[in-house]
């Protein structure tokens, strides 16, 4: 399995990128050359140089250091959103698929409703309702993301719910709770977890978008979307301020996508 992954150069690229992102996030204080929030009006709007790799912004903050610290924010959002929505979606999907009947109907109608909005519109409304902050963006994204996992897990559960090993467990007198958590979920979780690894990137992208329209991280924070948002004011004079945070987002999303694609090729033979 590992060999299959390593055989694909794109997957390796993905793994390397993800590793790079994680290392950057962990060692941000070591890697950053400046304090990411320190204002220095004497050196504002400076272009990229040996002193400031990616230049400085309208109040003289070092863009390179801000991007480095921004990795922490984006990674945190990506991980937390997936860590919240994945278990919720998985458990609901497993319950819907395994128990069926009325409960299935209710859960699946709920996912239909959530999925009838383009994700970002729903997240935007929720984030707006909760008030602009990074925590609320996190909750809003989690609230829009779970139905995908519910659908995926439910369909895998449906295909294995009549398996003989599940029946064997019932014949032994196992209660539904045990069957769900010991037999059903462990076997139904693979496709959804592949999706989750792809989603890490898309969540980060969506969060940056929400921050860009002013709903997420607020300006002093070195969040990439927020940085791009404030770069609009100075785009005429400082192309670098509008360029580098976007590259950071692109690389991050690309990394998680490539890794997810690689995982799918290995774990899901149907997609090969």
């Amino acid at each position, binding site marked *: 399995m590992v060999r299959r992954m390593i055989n694909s150069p*794109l997957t390796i690229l993905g793994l390397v990128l993800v590793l790079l992102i994680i290392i950057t996030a962990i060692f941000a204080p070591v890697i950053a050359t400046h304090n990411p929030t320190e204002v220095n009006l004497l050196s504002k709007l400076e272009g990229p140089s040996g002193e400031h790799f990616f230049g400085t912004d309208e109040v003289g903050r070092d863009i390179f250091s801000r991007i480095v610290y921004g990795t922490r924010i984006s990674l945190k959002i990506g991980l937390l959103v997936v860590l919240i929505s994945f278990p919720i979606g998985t458990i609901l999907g497993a319950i819907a698929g395994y128990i069926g009947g009325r409960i299935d109907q209710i859960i699946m*109608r*709920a996912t*239909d*409703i*959530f999925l*009838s*909005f*383009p*994700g*970002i*519109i*729903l997240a*935007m*409304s*929720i984030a*707006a*309702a*909760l*008030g602009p902050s990074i925590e609320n963006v996190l909750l809003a994204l989690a609230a829009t993301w779970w139905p995908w996992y519910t659908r995926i897990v439910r369909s895998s559960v449906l295909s294995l719910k009549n398996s003989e090993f599940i029946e064997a467990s019932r014949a032994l007198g196992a209660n539904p709770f045990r069957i769900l958590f010991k037999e059903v979920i462990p076997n139904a979780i693979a496709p959804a977890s592949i999706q989750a690894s792809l989603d890490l*990137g898309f969540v980060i*992208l969506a969060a*940056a*978008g929400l921050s*860009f*329209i*002013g*709903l997420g991280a607020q300006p002093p924070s070195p969040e990439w*979307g927020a940085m*791009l948002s404030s*770069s*609009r004011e100075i*785009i*005429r004079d400082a*192309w670098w301020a*509008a*360029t580098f*945070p*976007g590259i950071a*987002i*692109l690389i991050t*999303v*690309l990394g998680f*996508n*490539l890794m997810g694609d690689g995982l799918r090729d290995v774990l899901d033979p149907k997609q090969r």
Partner: protein
Amino acid sequence: MDALRYVFKRILLMIPILIGISILTFFISNTIPGDPARLILGPKATPDGIEELREEMGLNDPLYVQYGRYVNGIFHGDLGESTYSQQPVIDDLERYFPATLELTLFAMLITVLIGIPFGVISASKKDKLPDQFTRVFALLGVAMPAFWLGLLFLLLFYLKLGILPGSGRLDNGVSPPDMITGMYTVDALLTGNMVAFKSALIHLILPGITQAAVTIGMITRMTRSSMLEVLQSDYIRTAQAKGGSENRVLYGHALRNGIMPVITLLGMTFGHALGGSVLVESVFSWPGLGKYAVNAITYLDFPAVMGVTLLIALLFITVNLIIDTMYHLIDPRLKYN
């Protein structure tokens, strides 16, 4: 007949979803902090004045009464009054919707014109240079933050080169064509107003390409994998063996069968484009629903947020219904279940 029955069934199934959507949006909008009455009256309002307006606006009634009133209003085309623009929300939506529709359709057009041929070429030259190039291109498209791409376009084509406009729908001094559909390019063509048409088209280019960048990536990838599957099938090999020209086999036989999943994906990309409009319109100051939504949120404009969310959701499920129906009409093998 079967198709009619299918559509009827699907419309029936839409009803609970629509109810759910309205409850969800109502609930969300109601959670928005801030007192609309206080916002309307401004900082100098007296507590009594606020209380009076609250009573007048029905804000003191129980939530279910407010919801009932809201749903009743929807059936009468009344979505409340925007607290920011002081206009009925329905009028605002009518004004902003054509701009978004025009942009979205334009982006879809670019997507289809570029994405599908790219996918076909990529599949027919599998693992060769054009394929590698297209795949990397598609990969970047999917991972690309559209709003950032928009900023870069703005920087390059508008600010540095000055060859394309960077905001709005028309040049200053060009008056909009007579209103028919509200989509300027279409209206200008219909009325033969070539000045307005040219101006409107030029303004569409940057936001359109930005909007399309992501969906091109999605459609290219989908077309490629779908075509690969078809190209390996027996009847294509037969057609090749019979000596059909490569293009005839590719576009005549294979694409017709490989297009099915792509149609489904087109529906999804339409939704994606609608959602993406929020960001793209914000970058290019495009006066559409997305810009309206961002404004509404900035000013805590509760009826406007609800109205725009509702409209987009409705559009989204309608498009999905149309796509599903098309899908069933095209593929005779599918049963209407």
